C-alpha cells in the first residue's frame, strides 16, 4: 500500500518537473509603459525574463534619458499543470530633453545563454501641453481631486470686530495621510489693512474628515484691524510636492474590474490615490482655503482721557514697596495688568492724583500666556518720590475698551497705604531741574493730566573751604599695612605677659612640690612615732623632726631652720607645751650628741603618749 502511494507521488512529481521544464523555455522582452512622454514625465521600462537565473543589465545609458532601476517582480503561473516562472525588472525613464530616443537592445545573461531585447523608441515632447498626444499623466492629474490630497481650513471666530481688537485666527493644513508630501510651504495670510502676528506653528494631529484620514498641522496667529471697514481675508495658499501613486496606463481608460466593495461604494482600491503603489509620481499641488470676511467697527466716542487704545478684557493689581520712607526717598509702584487683548497698546496705569509726587519713567515687562500673545500679563514698575508727607500712594487708573460689553472700562486700584516721614522738600511740587526733566522726558512723555514741571532757582550750596586739610586715604584702616604692624606691639606684650605667667606658675609649682614632700615626710614620721619599735635616739630625733616639718609647713620655711622657739611661736603654745617642747628638743640633742648611753634604753609608754599628744596638737 505504502509503496503504491510512493510510486504515485514520484510519478506526479516527475510529471510536474517535466511540465515545468517544458514551460520554462527562456525568453526576454522589453516594454515601455508609454512610447511618448514629456520632459520631466517618467515612463516605466520593464524587462521581462521567462526562466530563472537571469542577470539583468544594471545600467542602461541613453543620452537625454535618465534610466534608474527601481525593483524586481517575480511571477509564477500554473496553467493545466504547466508552471511558468518569470521575472520582471522595472526601470524608471526620466526624459531630460525633448527628442526621439532609442533605447538600444539590452543583453540578458541566463546561464550560458545570452538573450537580447528588442530596440525601443521613446518620443519626448517639450512639455505636457505641447504633446500631440493626449497626456495620460495630465489626465491623471485631473482625475485626482486636490481636496482629497489636502486642503487648508481658515478659522476666524468672529465676523465683526472693533478697531484694534485682537482676533485669534487658526489655520489648519490638512494633508491626506496616504499621500507622501515633500517641500510643504506653510500657508501665508495676505490681507490689506490688517495687522497680524507671525504664524506660529502649533500642534500636529491625525484627524478623520469625511471618512479620510488627514495629517492636520495647526497654525495660530492673531489679526487686528487698524481702520474701520469691511476686510476680506483671501483664501490661504500652500504649495507642496505630492508623491502620488501612478496608475497603470494600460488600465487607465478602461474601468477597473469590479470589486465586491464597489456595491457599498467603499472600495479603497477605487480611490484614485491607490494606483500602482510601486510607482510614485511627484506632482506640485496648490492647497487653498476659503476666503473670510471681517467687518471692523469704529470704537465708540467719548473715550476716557487716559485711554491708550487697549481693547480687550483686563484686570489691574498694584503694590508698592517700601511702605515706610522719608520724604524724597523712592517708592516702587508695581502695577500688573493681566487679561486678553492688544497688549502692545497697554500702557502704564497713571496716578489719579500726582500732586506731591515726583514720577520717574516706568519700565514694563510682558509675559504671554499663549502662543500668539493675546493673553498674558504686563507688569509696570514706576518709581515715585514723595515731595511731602503722605499717607498713601494714590489710586492708579487704567482705561480700556471691552468689545464684549461694547463700552469703555476704567480700572481703578485702591490707594496703597504708605508712611512718608520728614519735612516737605522746598517747592516740592516743582522740584525738578531742567536736566532731570530732560532725562525723564527722554524716557517717556508726561502722562496726561500730570503737572508740568517748572524750572526753579537751585538752592544755594555752602561756601568753599580754603584749607586743604590733612592728606587722607580711601583705604580703610584695617586694610593698611601700618595697622597690622601696630598689632605687633600688643602681640609682643602678650608674649611677655605669657612668659612671665608661665615663670610664676613654675615657681608656684616648685613650692607646691616642696609642701607635698614635707606633708609626706610629716605623715611618715607620725606613723613611725606611733610604733614602739624605735630606740629613744631614733624616737626623739623623729619627734623633733616632725615638729620642725609641721612648723615649716605652717610657716613655709626650711624645716632645718626651725628650733623649739620658732615652733612654739608658730603654734602659739602655752607654757606647759613650751616646756615639753624644750625638753623634747633638749633630749634629742642630748641623745644625738652624747650617744645612746645616757638615759635608759627604752622610752616609757607615758613619755611616748605625751610626745605624740604634743605633736598631734600642733595646729596653726
Amino acid at each position: 500500500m505504502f509503496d503504491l502511494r510512493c510510486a504515485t507521488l514520484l510519478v506526479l512529481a516527475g510529471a510536474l518537473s517535466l511540465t515545468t521544464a517544458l514551460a520554462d523555455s527562456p525568453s526576454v522582452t522589453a516594454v515601455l509603459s508609454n512610447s511618448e512622454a514629456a520632459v520631466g514625465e517618467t515612463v516605466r521600462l520593464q524587462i521581462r525574463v521567462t526562466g530563472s537565473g537571469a542577470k539583468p543589465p544594471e545600467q542602461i545609458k541613453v543620452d537625454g534619458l535618465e534610466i534608474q532601476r527601481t525593483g524586481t517582480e517575480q511571477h509564477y503561473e500554473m496553467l493545466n499543470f504547466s508552471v511558468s516562472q518569470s521575472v520582471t525588472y522595472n526601470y524608471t525613464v526620466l526624459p531630460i530633453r525633448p527628442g526621439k530616443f532609442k533605447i538600444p537592445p539590452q543583453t540578458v545573461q541566463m546561464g550560458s545563454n545570452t538573450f537580447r531585447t528588442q530596440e525601443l523608441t521613446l518620443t519626448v515632447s517639450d512639455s505636457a501641453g505641447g504633446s500631440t498626444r493626449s497626456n495620460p499623466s495630465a489626465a491623471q492629474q485631473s482625475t485626482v481631486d486636490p481636496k482629497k490630497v489636502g486642503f487648508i481650513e481658515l478659522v476666524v471666530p468672529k465676523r465683526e470686530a472693533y478697531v484694534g481688537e485682537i482676533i485669534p485666527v487658526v489655520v489648519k493644513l490638512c494633508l491626506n495621510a496616504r499621500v507622501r508630501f515633500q517641500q510643504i510651504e506653510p500657508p501665508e495670510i495676505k490681507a490689506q489693512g490688517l495687522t497680524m502676528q507671525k504664524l506660529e506653528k502649533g500642534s500636529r494631529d491625525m484627524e478623520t474628515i469625511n471618512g479620510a484620514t488627514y495629517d492636520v498641522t495647526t497654525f495660530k496667529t492673531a489679526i487686528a484691524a487698524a481702520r474701520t471697514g469691511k476686510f476680506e481675508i483671501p483664501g490661504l495658499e500652500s504649495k507642496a510636492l505630492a508623491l502620488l501613486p501612478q496608475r497603470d496606463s494600460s488600465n487607465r481608460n478602461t474601468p477597473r474590474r469590479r470589486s465586491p466593495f464597489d456595491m457599498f461604494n467603499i472600495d479603497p482600491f477605487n480611490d484614485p490615490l491607490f494606483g500602482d503603489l510601486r510607482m510614485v509620481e511627484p506632482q506640485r499641488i496648490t492647497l487653498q482655503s476659503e476666503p473670510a470676511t471681517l467687518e471692523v467697527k469704529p470704537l465708540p466716542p467719548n473715550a476716557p482721557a487716559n485711554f491708550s487704545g487697549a481693547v480687550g478684557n483686563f484686570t489691574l493689581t498694584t503694590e508698592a514697596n517700601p511702605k515706610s520712607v522719608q520724604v524724597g526717598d523712592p517708592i516702587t509702584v508695581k502695577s500688573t495688568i493681566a487679561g486678553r487683548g492688544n497688549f502692545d497698546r497697554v500702557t502704564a496705569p497713571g496716578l489719579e492724583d500726582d500732586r506731591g509726587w515726583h514720577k520717574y519713567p516706568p519700565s514694563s515687562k510682558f509675559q504671554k500666556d499663549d502662543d500668539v500673545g493675546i493673553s498674558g500679563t504686563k507688569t509696570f514698575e514706576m518709581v515715585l518720590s514723595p515731595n511731602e508727607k503722605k499717607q498713601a500712594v494714590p489710586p492708579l487708573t487704567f482705561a480700556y475698551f471691552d468689545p464684549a460689553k461694547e463700552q469703555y472700562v476704567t480700572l481703578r486700584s485702591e490707594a496703597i497705604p504708605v508712611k512718608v516721614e520728614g519735612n516737605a522738600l522746598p517747592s516740592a511740587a516743582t522740584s525738578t531741574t531742567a536736566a532731570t526733566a530732560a532725562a525723564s522726558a527722554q524716557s517717556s512723555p508726561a502722562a496726561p493730566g500730570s503737572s508740568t514741571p517748572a524750572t526753579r532757582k537751585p538752592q544755594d550750596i555752602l561756601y568753599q573751604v580754603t584749607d586743604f586739610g590733612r592728606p587722607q586715604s580711601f583705604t580703610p584702616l584695617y586694610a593698611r599695612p601700618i595697622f597690622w604692624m601696630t598689632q605687633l606691639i600688643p602681640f609682643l606684650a602678650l608674649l611677655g605677659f605669657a612668659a612671665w605667667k608661665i615663670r610664676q606658675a613654675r615657681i608656684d609649682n616648685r613650692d607646691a612640690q616642696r609642701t607635698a614632700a614635707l606633708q609626706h615626710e610629716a605623715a611618715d614620721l607620725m606613723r613611725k612615732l606611733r610604733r614602739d619599735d624605735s630606740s629613744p635616739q631614733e624616737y626623739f630625733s623623729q619627734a623633733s623632726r616632725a615638729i620642725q616639718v609641721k612648723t615649716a609647713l605652717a610657716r613655709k620655711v626650711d624645716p632645718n631652720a626651725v628650733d623649739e622657739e620658732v615652733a612654739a611661736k608658730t603654734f602659739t603654745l602655752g607654757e606647759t607645751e613650751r616646756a615639753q617642747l624644750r625638753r623634747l628638743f633638749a633630749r634629742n640633742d642630748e641623745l644625738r650628741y652624747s650617744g645612746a648611753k645616757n638615759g635608759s634604753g627604752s622610752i616609757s609608754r607615758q613619755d611616748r603618749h605625751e610626745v605624740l599628744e604634743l605633736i598631734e596638737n600642733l595646729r596653726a
Partner: protein
Amino acid sequence: MNRLIANLSCRRRRLGDAKRAPFKRFPSRFAKRSIYGAIIGAFLVSSAFAQSDAHFAKANQEYAAGQFKEAIEDYESLVRGGQWSANLFYDLGNAYFRAGDFGRAILNYERALALEPRHPEADANLRIARDEARALELATTRPERSLQQLVSLNQYAIAASIAFWVGIFAITGLIFARRRSFGSTALSILSLSIFAFATATIVWIDNGNKGRALAIVTDKGVEARVATADNANSVLALPPGSEIKILSKRGDWIYAALPNNLRGWISAKSAEPIRL
C-alpha cells in the same frame, strides 16, 4: 728717662687713636647718609605739599572768580596726583555743582564724606545736590544707618583691635590664674563680644549698600537695562547722582544693585566708584 716717658706717651696716643677710629668712621658713612636722606625726603614732601597747597589756592581763586571749569581742572589735577583730602573733594563737588553737573557734584561730596564722615559742609551740600538732581539713593536698613552714624569704619577697626587684645590678655590671665575671678571672666567675655560686634559691623557696612562697592551715576539719561545691550529693556531710569552698588563687571558693562531693590546693567562709563 725722658725717652721712656716719650715712648709711653706716644704709645698712649696711638692706642687712643685706634680706640676712637671706628666711632669717627661711623657717622661719616651711615648717619650722614641718613641725615641727608631725611633732609631730602622732608624737602620733597614739603615741596609737594607746598605745590599742592598752591594748586589748591589757585583753584579756589578760580572758583571765587566764577571760572568753574578752570577750577574743576585744577582740583581734578590734584586728585589725579593722589593728594586727597576731604576738603579737596568738597570744593571739587562745589565746583561741579556750580557748573551744573550734579552727578559729579554728588560723587565728590560722597568722596569727601567717605574720607571724613563728619564733614558738615559736604553733608549739607550733598543734600542740596541730591534734591536738585532728584538722585535715587540705595535703601539702607535702620540698624545699618544707625551703625554708620555711630562711628566711622576706622573707629570700628580701632575698637575691634583694642577689644581683641584686652580680651586675649584677660583670657591669658585666666589661663594662668590659680583661681578664676569673676572680673577677669567678665572682662574677657565683654572684650571679645565688643571685638565680634565691631568686626561684624565692619564686614556688614563694607559689604552693604553703602560699602566699598558704592558708585554714583555721573552721566545724564542713564537707564539700567536687563541685558548688556543698548536696546535691551529698561529696568530703571537713573538720574545723575543716583547711587548704585557694583556687583560685577563684564566688559564695558556693570551689573549693579539699584535703588528700590532692583538690579540691572549699566554702561561702565556712566558711573564712578566713590572709593578711589
